[in-house]
């Protein structure tokens, strides 16, 4: 069949594209309505966007980009917050605000890398275990998951990170290893209940392949809580990696990291309080932002678009 014949025999194709666009716009409106019903979600989203933009534009928006690395200016060391250094300076004279903004980069990068490995792995395993519920495959996957879940996450990450060389890469590996089982759990439950839905049975009875059933029929129905959890988890991954860097198992100096800044400053408490308080506040704000935005996402995906 030629292309000309197509458009002749299917005037609906044109109609379809317009309809798709129109429906997309309508759905976006509904999604935003569901999301913005809770004003705190909007605040969370604003925080998240601000942090992301600050991190991307760090060299432009910070007053002293050169302070992000190994920089020493003893004349300006240990200064309290002032007009030129709004969050003050550390014992080497580096601008704390600049270092916080730069450390957002590392924090977001960790979250991005950790989640982009942990989520697909966790989801895939959960999907398989859920669909083959009651078989050996289910037992093997889910008992392994249980083992990982049984160990307190921070301890596990500490153990792994301390066995390896302390650097950003290894702390990412450590956090990833403790993160995937949560996704396996969530998807497992969803997939196991989805498996008994009539639309899955209908696909099986008509002879669809396992791959089709897993990825086309079941997976799309398991994703809403996964997206919500991703949004909520960004904050927690950042917190865990900050904890690792607090005990010296993360990013190594002079590159700024929030946990490491808090722990450095802690030595000078309470005299140089700004060295600890502002990075700590930054951690709080990041986690708060992602959590609020995550709650909004949940409202949006769970009330659904009808």
């Amino acid at each position, binding site marked *: 069949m030629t292309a000309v014949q197509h458009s002749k025999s299917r005037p609906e194709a044109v109609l379809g594209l317009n309809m798709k666009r129109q429906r997309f716009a309508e759905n976006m*409106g*509904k999604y935003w*309505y569901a999301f913005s019903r809770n004003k705190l979600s909007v605040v969370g989203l604003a925080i998240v966007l601000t942090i992301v933009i600050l991190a991307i534009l760090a060299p432009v928006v910070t007053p002293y980009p050169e302070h992000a690395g190994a920089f020493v200016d003893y004349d300006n060391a240990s200064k309290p917050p002032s007009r030129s250094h709004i969050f003050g300076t550390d014992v080497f004279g580096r601008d704390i605000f600049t270092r916080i903004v730069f450390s957002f980069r590392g924090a977001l990068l960790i979250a991005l890398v950790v989640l982009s490995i942990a989520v697909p792995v966790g989801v895939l395993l959960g999907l398989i275990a859920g669909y083959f519920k009651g078989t050996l495959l289910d037992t093997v996957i889910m008992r392994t998951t249980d083992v990982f879940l049984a160990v307190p996450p921070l301890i596990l990450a500490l153990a792994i990170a301390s066995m390896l060389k302390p650097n950003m890469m290894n702390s990412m590996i450590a956090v990833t290893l403790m993160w995937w089982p949560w996704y396996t759990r969530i998807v497992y439950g969803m997939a196991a209940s989805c498996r008994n839905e009539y639309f899955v049975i209908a696909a099986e009875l008509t002879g669809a392949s396992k791959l089709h059933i897993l990825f086309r029929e079941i997976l799309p129905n398991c994703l809403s809580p996964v997206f919500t959890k991703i949004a909520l988890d960004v904050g927690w991954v950042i917190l865990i990696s900050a904890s690792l860097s607090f005990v010296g198992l993360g990013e190594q100096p002079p590159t700024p990291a929030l946990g490491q800044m808090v722990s450095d400053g802690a030595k000078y408490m309470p005299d140089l309080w700004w060295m600890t308080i502002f990075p700590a506040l930054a951690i709080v704000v990041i986690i708060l932002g992602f959590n609020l935005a995550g709650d909004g996402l949940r409202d949006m995906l769970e009330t659904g678009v009808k």
Partner: protein
Amino acid sequence: MPEEILLDIKGLNVWYRVYGGYLKVVHNLSLQVYRGERVGLVGEAGCGKTTTMKAILRILPESVAHIPRGEIIFRGRDVLKMNRAELQKLRSRGIAMIFQDPTSALNPVFTVGEQLEDVIRFALPPEERQKKRIHDIAVQALKEVYLPDQERILQSYPVQLSGGMRQRICISMAITTPRELLIADEPGTSLDVTIQDQILRLLRELVEKHGTSIILITHSLGVARQMTDRIYVMYAGSIVEAAPSATLFKEPLHPYTVGLLASVPKISGGGIAEGIPGRIPNYLNPPNGCRFQPRCSLSDDRCLSQSPPILDVGGGHYVACFRYER
């Protein structure tokens, strides 16, 4: 025919707030229940009959539901203006409720006895709330709904009982304490036809014995015919026709009622007529005039622009359709 009006709903409107505006579900609904009368409220899914029932008991979700106009007068008092204490009294002594699904109407973590006795306790004046007395009333209540082995049932959890037994327990809760009005929302629909038959016969017997008025909400014309003295037919949030039951089935007037009756499959066979084309209107932007007009084969220009008035055609038969204007 008893003449005292027990419940009088006047021009009730109920809206739900959603994305893009309000769903104008119930629209100028008026309905009367006389003392001791059995009234049927018949309509298809989505016609607003459950919303109406929830409005009467004031159990609509407050965050989204909105009542722009209307009055619900129960024993001379407007339910919509009642304060918390009056509502509490209304629900514990005035109006009782039986839900469609007896499984979700009973709390699975408490025994039947605990739940039934709670209902009895709240309905009694404080000085009469002795344990023994309450228990005796509970046993009596189960006897009344023909449940055997009452002591054992009182100690059972809802999951240990069958659907029919659970519905009998819900009925006993509703009927045991003196109430003036019983609202039964599809009481037999989730049950099998033989069990539904038993439940309906029981309900009818108890309502007659206690002289309680009942609003039977149902989608089934057959159930309404068997159970009620008078029927209101509801379509898209409004009453389209009201008549004594026998009259309604002999001479339905409103095109919707006619179509609905034609669509009911008969056990005498002969195929099923497709009485009504199309589907229920979108409540976000309902038709301006008659809400049934888009599906009506007999409509004219006036139906498009004006809401039809409720016309008295005599013999207690009312219809909301321009065709019956003199």
